[in-house]
């Protein structure tokens, strides 16, 4: 898929086409993942956290894309901004002793469940926002299904989802 196809998907997405937007984000995630894996070589930085933070930034800042311009320079500029941010946070954070880190890695592998940076941001949402975001992401429900199961109006679900995602984007990686 070249830049022109990606731009077409993104334009459809900006007009509200959820399917096109999902496809666009899918493709963006693959590009950023390959890009971040080459750069996050320290081992202390999980490239997938960079992917997720970049997707959130794409989402809340998608109105800054010039719809008549190429997508990739815009996309990678956001990824770079987020990678630099993540590396700066790592540099500031507590330095972990290598032995401790190995133990921790071994423990993580044993559990096979990893600690997502995004889940820490998810925990800071209001209960209402969290249940909507969880219903749609983790449980894979549609807006209509989420509205039914949470006994909310669809517009209220949309608002809670929108605000919840904005709050996650803002708090990602910050305590």
């Amino acid at each position, binding site marked *: 898929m070249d830049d022109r196809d990606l731009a077409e998907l993104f334009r459809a997405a900006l007009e509200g086409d959820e399917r096109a937007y999902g496809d666009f984000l899918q493709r963006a995630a693959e590009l950023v993942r390959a890009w971040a894996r080459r750069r996050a070589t320290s081992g202390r930085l999980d490239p997938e956290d960079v992917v997720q933070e970049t*997707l959130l930034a794409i989402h809340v800042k998608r109105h800054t894309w010039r719809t008549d311009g190429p997508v990739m320079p815009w996309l990678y500029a956001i990824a770079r901004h987020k990678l630099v941010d993540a590396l700066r946070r790592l540099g500031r954070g507590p330095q972990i002793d290598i032995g401790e880190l190995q133990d921790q890695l071994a423990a993580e592998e044993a559990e096979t469940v990893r600690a997502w940076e995004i889940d820490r941001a998810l925990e800071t949402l209001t209960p209402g926002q969290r249940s909507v975001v969880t219903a749609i992401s983790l449980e894979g429900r549609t807006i209509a299904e989420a509205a039914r199961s949470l006994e909310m109006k669809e517009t209220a679900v949309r608002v809670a989802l929108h605000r919840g995602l904005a709050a996650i984007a803002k708090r990602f990686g910050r305590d």
Partner: protein
Amino acid sequence: METQELIKALAADARRHGMSMAFAWSVAGFAAIAVAAIVFFLMLGARTDIAVAAQTGRFLFKFIVTIALAVSAFALLHVLARPEAEARRMLPRLAVAPALLLAAIVAELAVTPPDTWTARLVGTNSLVCLTFIPLIGIGPLALLLAGLRHGAPSHPALAGAVAGLTAGGIAATFYAAHCTDDSPLFVATWYTIAVAMLALVGALAAHRIVRW
């Protein structure tokens, strides 16, 4: 949350996105000019001999420089608010106002006797200039910084400085209608210092508040 799950949530929120940058900048730009105008007319007002002054090249030239600064800085601000802006390649665009001013200084030095240069540079209004350009410009700067927050600048401090230059250009355009010191020597000295103060405030503020 797996990345796949995150994508589902983001896609479901496809319909709601922020207002376009073009719209945000026109709102911020108009509001900035309106705020500057209100502060100017409440606190200063135009000079009383403006009709006579408007016949002189020196008076009119002040507006050419300040409007050139405001327009070129505002255009650059549009670019810098986007993440992919290549800052270094864009900066030469700011050279228009300084180049105009430099040409005017050369002309002024050519047509005026050297013993009047100091008086022309010092003028009578330097303190008023250093007070009111920042004062008129601070509201516009706040509005332009709000515009930057809506954007996604990769170099927030630089973009903030350019917001300060834009606010300074707007403020200086209004202030120029009040000030009776019309020599390019005065403008190049005191206007520049006043505008630089706004640029510095813009850079420091953006560094702190324009996070994304």
